[in-house]
């Protein structure tokens, strides 16, 4: 379980998070929705300690994330970055297997390569991409390599920052199914940011909507359509008219 309590974060005068509270239950799939620039990516980075909140506490299984052994803490996480963030000096399989050949129980190269190729297959990539460099792949392929890297070491908690952006509808379907499978089969706690309402319905156990630095609405995905919140309704139906200003 991940708990965020009264989290604040500002960049200069830009107050992105303004006292946010959120609970992500263990083994569930939480989807974060919200307008562009509302701080969804910043929220994930705060949990990982890549961005330091100005105020507030974040705990994982009751333990403050800023205390204790950072390596052990991070070893429990996998993260797909919004931009992929692949290491462009390394081959695709070396990216995917990056954690496997390091850390406390390192695999040898051949094993890591095999696991990497298997993970690539799960995100719909053929083995022959394994020896290419990230720059030789299309945007959607890079995204999927990032996804394979996030799941490669089979972490307990995985964050997906827009996993289906830039993918064709069929590939989006494949990725949605994959994320769902990972949560159900391996008991992973997943936190996904997406703007794609089809993905939301396919992936989520629970949904949280971020607006104005706070969680505007959160609840089971089944309750989403019937929820009376006008902000949420405007967002999920993609209406230009409503309480959310279109110039932000």
């Amino acid at each position, binding site marked *: 379980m991940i708990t965020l309590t009264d989290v604040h974060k500002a960049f200069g005068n830009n107050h992105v998070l303004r006292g946010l509270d959120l609970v992500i239950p263990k083994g569930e799939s939480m989807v974060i929705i919200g307008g562009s620039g509302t701080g969804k990516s910043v929220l994930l*980075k705060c949990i*990982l*300690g*890549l961005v330091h909140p100005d105020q507030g506490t974040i705990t994982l299984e009751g333990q403050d994330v800023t205390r204790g052994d*950072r*390596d052990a803490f*991070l*070893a429990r*996480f*996998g*993260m797909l*970055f*919004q*931009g992929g*963030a*692949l*290491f*462009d*000096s390394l081959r695709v399989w070396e990216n995917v297997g*990056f*954690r496997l050949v*390091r*850390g406390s129980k390192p695999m040898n190269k051949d094993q890591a390569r095999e696991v990497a190729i298997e993970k690539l297959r799960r995100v719909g990539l053929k083995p022959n991409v394994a020896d290419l460099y990230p720059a030789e792949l299309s945007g959607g392929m890079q995204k999927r390599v990032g996804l394979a*890297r996030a799941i490669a070491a089979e972490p307990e908690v995985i964050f997906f920052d827009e996993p289906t952006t830039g993918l064709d509808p069929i590939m989006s379907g494949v990725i949605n199914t994959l994320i769902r499978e990972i949560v159900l089969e391996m008991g992973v706690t997943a936190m996904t940011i997406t703007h794609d309402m089809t993905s939301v319905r396919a992936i989520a156990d629970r949904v949280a909507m971020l607006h104005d630095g706070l969680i505007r609405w959160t609840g089971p995905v089944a309750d989403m359509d019937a929820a009376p919140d006008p902000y949420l309704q405007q967002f999920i139906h993609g209406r230009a008219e409503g309480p959310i200003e279109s110039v932000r």
Partner: protein
Amino acid sequence: MIGAVLARIGRPVLAVLAGFGRVVLFALDTLRHLLTPPFYWREFWASLLQIGWFSLPVVGLTAFFTGGALALQIYSGGSRFSAEAVVPQIVAIGMARELGPVLGGLMVAARVASSIAAEIGTMKVTEQIDALVTLSTHPMKYLTVPRVLAATLAVPVLVAVGDSIGISGGWLVGITKLGFNSATYLKNTTDFLEFWDVGSGLVKGAVFGFIVALMGCYAGMNSGRGAQGVGAATKSAVVAASVLILAANYVLTGLFFSS
């Protein structure tokens, strides 16, 4: 009025001092990570190849032309008081003590500080540094330590090669244009040159290599956002490395030779 003038002068001075302080802290942090495991050998060998081997042509060419020009200058200057014969000795001492390390260091600064800053800066803006952290790999250990160590070890070797090429450049000009006898030229060079002339230059080279890689990594790690941020980081890495090399050269020369 005077207050405003003082503030005008004081603010940039304070900014430079604060920046220098941050670089010193960064250097100490680098040393701390160098001394604690893990050490990334693969990154180290790759950096050594990149910084050492691939800098050879540019350092060699610079040294060659500098040695040649130096021979011409000393000959024409020396002729004013009939001292043309000192060309081999002065070329050797000038190359080994000053021009080899300083020009080598500056060429490496142009070539290596810029490329390190651009590479690490790009990694920063494309979140690759964040990705390293989430994969439990410390960016200082994985990126900074191998580059700084490789440059500190490679630049003295480059300086040694540059010294030899520079002295050869002087010799070539000496025997083809200035009428020196080849054997005499070489004998004068080897008899005159002392170990510390060359050794001090190599020590300088190690310090300059350290400065170059450190400034490249520092600028890259602190790069601003976007392509503009990377551009600014690259520029400041080269400028800072070059100025620090020249300043360090003055300090080291004072330490080594002023007694």
